[in-house]
Structure formats: C-alpha cells, structure tokens
C-alpha cells in the first residue's frame, strides 16, 4: 500500500484494472470522500449516502476493466456517482454488512449497561431550523436532474463544464436545469426573504 500511495493515478488504475485489490483500495481512498460528499449533499441523509457510496464503488469495481481512460478517472467516477444518485430511490436498503436486529440492540444495551455508559447524548439530534427544513423540502420538489445540478453547483461548487462532463450532457442543458431549479427554489422560499 505504501508503494501504491506514491504512484500516479494512471498507474494505480492500471493495476486495479487487472484485479489488484490493493490498487483498487488505493483508488477508493483517493476519491471516496468526494463521492460520499456528492451523495450526502444530494440525498441529505447519511444512511442513504452510504448506500450510494457502496453502490458506486461496487459498480466501479465491476466496470473498471472496461475503463478506457478516454476521460479523467475522476470524471468517470463522478459520472457513475451522479447516475447512482439519480436512480436512487428513497427506500432504505437493509445493510448487507452490518445488520441491526432486535437481538443486537438488546446486546448493545446490555453491554452499555455493564459499562455504565450513558447513551443519552448519542441520541441527541441536531436541531433543524425552520429555514433548513424549508430549503430541504424545496430541494426535494426539484426534478432529480435539477436537484443534482443545483447540488453540484451550489453546495459542491463545481464549474458548469465539470457538471456537464459528469452528467454527460451539454453546458447549455446544465444551465437550463440550474435556472429552472433556481426559479423553483425562489417560488418556494420567497416568503422567507421578502
């Protein structure tokens, strides 16, 4: 892993393409924070964001041997990320790795009780202001494409050209989605600033 860290993307990708799992892990570590960030901002839900993250890298792992480097790896990866986001429903999939059964909850409680650790604070939720809730609701009214463009532009700060590459469409289409998204956000949030 130490050697892999020193390598350029192209070399790491080359090794990952032929099935080197360590190289794949290295790629994940180089780019996964951004993938998770896009997912988290898009769905605004940590559990769903983790599901999207998993789905993205499973797809990347499967498709990597076919990656022909016609575009930057990051562009290809973020294109997969936006595709997974756009097709992601609101359903909460059961985790394949860590399941949360009633039994497990009971064991957790017992273990906590044994240790005398209070868990009150772990239940503490971040307070959502009215504005935050309203913005979130307004964003959910946007079409998936509008929401994606708006998220990438407004909260992730990507340039229009980069968003167009990610979504495999023209810059004009991205602008159209952005203008429409802004219009709809204005319509829904006007009473907050007038």
């Amino acid at each position, binding site marked *: 892993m130490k050697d892999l860290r020193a390598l350029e993307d192209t070399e790491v990708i080359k090794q990952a393409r032929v099935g080197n799992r360590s190289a794949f892990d290295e790629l*994940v570590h180089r780019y996964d924070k951004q993938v998770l960030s896009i997912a988290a901002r898009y769905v605004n839900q940590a559990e769903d964001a983790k599901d999207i993250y998993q789905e993205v890298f499973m797809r990347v792992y499967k498709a990597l041997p076919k990656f022909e480097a016609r575009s930057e790896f990051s562009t290809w990866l973020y294109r997969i990320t936006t595709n997974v986001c756009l097709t992601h429903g609101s359903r909460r999939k059961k985790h394949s790795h860590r399941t949360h059964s009633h039994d497990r909850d009971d064991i*957790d409680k017992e*273990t906590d009780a044994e240790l005398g650790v209070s868990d009150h604070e772990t239940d503490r939720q971040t307070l959502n202001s009215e504005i935050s809730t309203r913005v979130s609701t307004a964003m959910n009214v946007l079409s998936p494409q509008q929401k994606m463009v708006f998220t990438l532009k*407004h909260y992730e700060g990507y340039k229009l050209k980069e968003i167009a590459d990610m979504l495999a469409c023209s810059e004009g289409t991205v602008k159209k989605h952005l203008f429409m998204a*802004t219009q709809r956000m204005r319509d829904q949030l006007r009473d907050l*600033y007038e």
Partner: protein
Amino acid sequence: MTHEQYRERVELKFYDELGAAEQKELETHLLECKECSAFHDELKKLHGVLAQYKPVEVTDRLLFEARDQLIGAMRGKDAQSSLLDRLREYVGDALLPNYKVALGGVMTIALGFALGYVAFRSGPTESPSVSLPVQSMNPSPELVRGEGQIANVRDISSDPRSGEVEFMFDAVMPVHMKGSVNDPKIQQVLAHAILNEQNPGVRLRTVSAIASERVEQPDSDVRDILIMAAVSDENPGVRIEALKALQQFPMDEKIKKTYLDILKHDNNSAIRIAAINALASSKRGIAVPDKEFIDVLKQRMQTDNNDYVRLRAKAVLQENKQ
C-alpha cells in the same frame, strides 16, 4: 440582449461563471434596468437563505462507516464470485451437448437420493454435521481445530462417465487459536473481529484483549483498525476500549488527531473524557502542541456541556502553557 438573458447572467454571476467582459456588461445593465436590478437583489436574498441550510456533513466517522460497509459488501461479492466461477467452470465441462438430457435426468435422481438421505437417515445426530479430520497447524500460535459443521448442501450432480458425484456445501469450522497479542497472525484475526463481528460484546472483548496487553511490536494496521473502532464503532463501550487500546501505541500524529476528533465530535461525554485523559496522559508524545490541539481544547473548555470535560480541557491547556 433580452432581459431574460441578463437575468441568466445574474444567476451565473452569483456562481462566478461570468467572464470579465460579461460581468462588466451586466453591471452596466443593472444600473439602467430596475427590473433586472430587483431580480439581482432578490437572488442575493435567496442565496442568503440557502447559505443557512446545512446539508449532511461528511465527517471522518461517516467516511469510516461507508468504507466499512463497502469492505463488507466487497467481501461478500468475492465469496459469491468464487462460487459462481467454480460452478460455471464445472457446468462448462460437464454439459456436453450429447449428454445434456441424460445428465439432467441423472442429476435429478441423484438430487432426490441426496435429499432423501439427508432427510430420513437415522443416526445419533439430528443435524447434518460430520467430523472433519484434524489438521496439524503451525505450532506458534497454537491452533487446534475442532469439529466442522456442514450445511446448505446444494448443486448436486453426477457424471455417468466417471461415476463421480459433485456438490457444494458450506463448511463452518471452529478454530481455537492461542498466542501472544504481539503475534501478527493473532493481531490479524483480532483486527478482523473488530471490523466485522456483529456482536458488540465480542468486539468489546477483542479490543479489551489488545488494551490489556503491552503491545511490543506496534502494527500500523492494528492501530488503524483501533482508530476506526474508536471513531466509528456504534457501541460506546467499544469506542472507549479502543481508546484505551490506542494508548498502548506510541503517540503519533494519527493517534493525536483521533483523540482530537473524538473530543470534537463524539456525543458521548464519557468518551470525550476518555479522549481528553488519553491526550493528557500521552502529551509527552506531542512535541509542540499545535494550533489544532490548542483550538480544540479551548473550544471544549468554553462550550462542552460536560463540567468535567471543560475542567480537564482547561487543565491540559494550562499544563501545556507551562
């Protein structure tokens, strides 16, 4: 240009997507056009509202959890692929065109016999378990294998040419392992348990085992897994034990950052106390307290909702000033 086009430029201006000439042209227009100027002001207010919205933040813990979930999924995928490859390889060899129908019949009969045997055979054991031969293992660490369990017998097929039967099953074999916590093989298994064991009691005992022994040969992989457990394990008991275990390792930047992250982000005050105590007890490893160290402690001293954390933060800060 139409007003509509100027308004689009207003939007692009807020996203820093205008060239210098376009921006200048827009500013001139805004001075002359009240409608577009009002639109500009409205959009400014909208951006003010949008700035107050805080979407889900990608914390180190969330990233750890996502990675952990991915590792589990990849492992499952590997196991599945391996079985499918073997099945595909076998089917490719066995299903020659002339034998397809005959083999189909033979396989059905063989499957019937096998199921009948499993369902109705008499014997002292109720479950379909058999003893597996004990294999000699490397004496250090000592390994003694117990009996294995066979389950999920499937894909039974027979080859009339050779008279052989082939099938698949899941074998679960208990393995008794004994050795020093400094043994890399032992560390590897313990690390696997911390990452993958679903029972928090087992994770807790595993981390405790590391915490209770003096680690003579610090392994960076084990350290990283303990860091992951300290930051992201959902069970507070495991997180505290992982913090204790980390104190067995020489202080380095990664461990220091972990203590500070926990101090900043963990909602459980008991764990924040453990983190600040760990920082205080290992401060000799921090050559010069850096800005982040001081900032986090100052912030805790001023804002933590736990009295003890505030007092400890103040004390540690004072110690470091001296």
